[in-house]
């Protein structure tokens, strides 16, 4: 898509601006849809109907109405807040989760920037979210917000280690940090997914399968923690910390936190789908392949994990801070190390 646009427009800068906005065309409608979906999923799990009125069919316009309401709301800044930090925090959080979309390949024809260190870049920029959350917690000048922010910082930093190690398994197999390369490595159908040990042509692939499978589970659990979703929603634990770091936000700034959360949910799902489930490649070989269907497969795989995240959220209770740290340091990290070692041994042999 990038050479095509360059040829059409003849201008690099406009091309890059357009390329940068393309994920937004997905993220914003997706977030509106995902909020509605979350309400519907939770409602149907809980013997309710959820929104049914706004817009006619099953309340499809409910989130649009919510956004209209939030736009009209007064933007309240607490008198004792640190005005600059309080103002900037939601933007930093959103930028952190949006920037990750830059190197995620939506299809064989579209990737914001085909960096050769794409995965490394994602791990780096997604940590920016922590800065935003700390800014929000500190800037609000509210003890509950501060608690949420501190918990969040501890949690996200702890869980980055198992995440990075689990990502490493896919990187070691493919020998590339570029997400486009990793996806192409798994082309040709379900049997080639790294989840099941990589391409069928690999000798002794069944030896790899336990390691890749476990590292996928580790990646998924750790990414739940990174997006602050149940059972790891400790930073915004409603019954303990009211609303955590975004307690003191209202109107559009609050909506921006929400948008960032849902964008993040999709980003981590997309990364898991790209690394272990073949990204935009069709699960059935060449059936429904090609760049256009690639977008469909990529979004379906991503949305499936978004749905799983919602499913878990409405089923499980919340962990406690010390239990959360225990899982990260004493369960996930050693297992992730074991997976890295196992794959390493395989590659050496």
């Amino acid at each position, binding site marked *: 898509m990038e050479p095509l646009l360059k040829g059409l427009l003849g201008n690099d800068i406009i091309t890059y601006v357009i390329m940068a906005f393309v994920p937004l065309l997905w993220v914003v409608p997706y977030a509106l849809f995902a909020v509605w979906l979350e309400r519907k999923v939770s409602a149907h799990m*809980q013997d309710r109907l959820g929104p049914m009125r706004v817009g006619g069919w099953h309340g499809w316009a409910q989130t649009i109405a919510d956004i209209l309401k939030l736009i009209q709301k007064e933007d309240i800044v607490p008198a004792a807040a640190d005005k600059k930090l309080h103002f900037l925090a939601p933007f930093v959080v959103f930028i952190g989760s949006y920037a990750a979309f830059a190197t995620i390949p939506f299809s064989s024809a579209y990737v914001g920037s085909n960096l050769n260190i794409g995965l490394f870049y994602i791990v780096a920029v997604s940590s920016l979210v922590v800065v935003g959350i700390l800014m929000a917690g500190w800037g609000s000048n509210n003890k509950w917000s501060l*608690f949420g922010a501190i918990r969040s910082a501890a949690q996200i930093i702890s869980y980055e280690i198992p995440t990075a190690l689990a990502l490493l398994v896919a990187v070691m197999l493919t020998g590339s940090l570029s997400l486009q390369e990793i996806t192409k490595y798994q082309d040709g159908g379900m049997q080639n997914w790294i989840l099941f040990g990589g391409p069928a042509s690999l000798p002794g692939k069944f030896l790899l399968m336990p390691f890749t499978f476990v590292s996928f589970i580790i990646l998924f659990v750790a990414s739940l923690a990174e997006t602050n979703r149940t059972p790891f929603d400790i930073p915004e634990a409603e019954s303990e910390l009211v609303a955590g770091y975004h307690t003191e936000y209202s109107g559009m700034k609050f909506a921006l936190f929400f948008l960032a959360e849902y964008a993040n949910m999709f980003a981590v799902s997309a990364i898991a789908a790209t690394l272990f489930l073949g990204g935009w490649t069709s699960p059935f070989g060449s059936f429904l392949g090609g760049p256009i269907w690639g977008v469909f497969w990529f979004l379906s795989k991503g949305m499936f994990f978004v749905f799983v995240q919602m499913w878990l959220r409405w089923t499980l209770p*919340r962990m406690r801070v010390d239990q959360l740290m225990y899982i990260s340091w004493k369960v996930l990290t050693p297992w992730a190390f074991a997976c890295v070692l196992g794959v390493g041994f395989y590659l050496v042999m």
Partner: protein
Amino acid sequence: MNDLLTHPLKTSTGRTIRSEEMIINMGPQHPSTHGVLRLEIVVDGEIVVDVIPHVGYLHRCFEKHCESMTNYQQVIPYCDRLDYIASMNMDWAYCLAAEKLLAIQVPERVQYIRVIMAELQRIASHLIALGTYGLDVGAFTPFLFMFRDRERILDLFEMTCGARLLYNYIWIGGVSHDLPPGFVDKAKAFCKYFRPNIKEFNDLLTYNEIFIKRTANVGVLPKDVAIAYACSGPMLRGSGVSFDLRKDDPYSIYDRFEWSVPVGKGEVGTIGDCWDRYMVRMREMTESLNILEQALAQIPDGDVASAIPKRIRPNAGDAYVRSESPRGEIGFYIVSDGSGTPYRVKARSPAFVNLSVTPEICRGSMIADLVAIVGSVDIVLGEVDR
């Protein structure tokens, strides 16, 4: 250990760095204080050093109001508003005390109706207690499942007396209306419907690994402390003391039914932890169903209004009667000076007494545990503050 709280750090530039304990207000506006309880908590990081409960935000001068009524029956709507999620039990407790003062014997049918209502109310109240407890530890779905079933009980109440929350149904000497036609069948159908649902709750929440991790060995209330603080109800039974007024000091017709008193056994942790208190409530619902089924099968015909006195003017004297509400021992002490209004009414509130033990069991736990402990006490602020 290099603890900045006790050992301040000197930097090379001569500055002293030390950490402090932080005082946080939890409530009266907080999602998990179950109303308008205010907890002043002193925390060292995530660890709770001390808890000071402040009550009284819902104080409505109940006892003074009772003295200014024009007659004894008028007190009952105020009793409804004490423990507003177990109104039937409150009304009944007050009426028992007034009936003792007047020395009235209520008809057989009224006894049965009262037991049926009280046990239905106990299930409804425990459903709220367990559901909101799930909310406190972050599980949202069981809460709505439990409200779905509570709705059926409220429908039964609405069918009987028109009200769904504050009934004014149990009157001194009787009840305000007889059971409507079809009530007994519907109540039996409810028992049949509800029994399997308890298993569903257990599968969904009780034996969930995360839920057990969050509640086992948390907020352990030892037997002797529970007795020393005069705890009652599931709070006391959770600590392994088998004490239920329906069994140990039977009032009304409770001695006619076959049922047992569930106590905490420390199945997944220590005896007297939050999980035990939760489980005692869960098992009490089964026992209430047992009582209900027997009462519904035995209920005789008769008149419900025959014993309601026209004028209530007890002789000068006093009476104290205690009974078992879903939260524990509710007692009413009424002093009469021979006039048409009570001279003094005192309510012994179980939730207030149970709440007083929380600072004792909260110290040293984490903030998340504090929420779990306060939830397991199952307070209703209307009754705490009166």
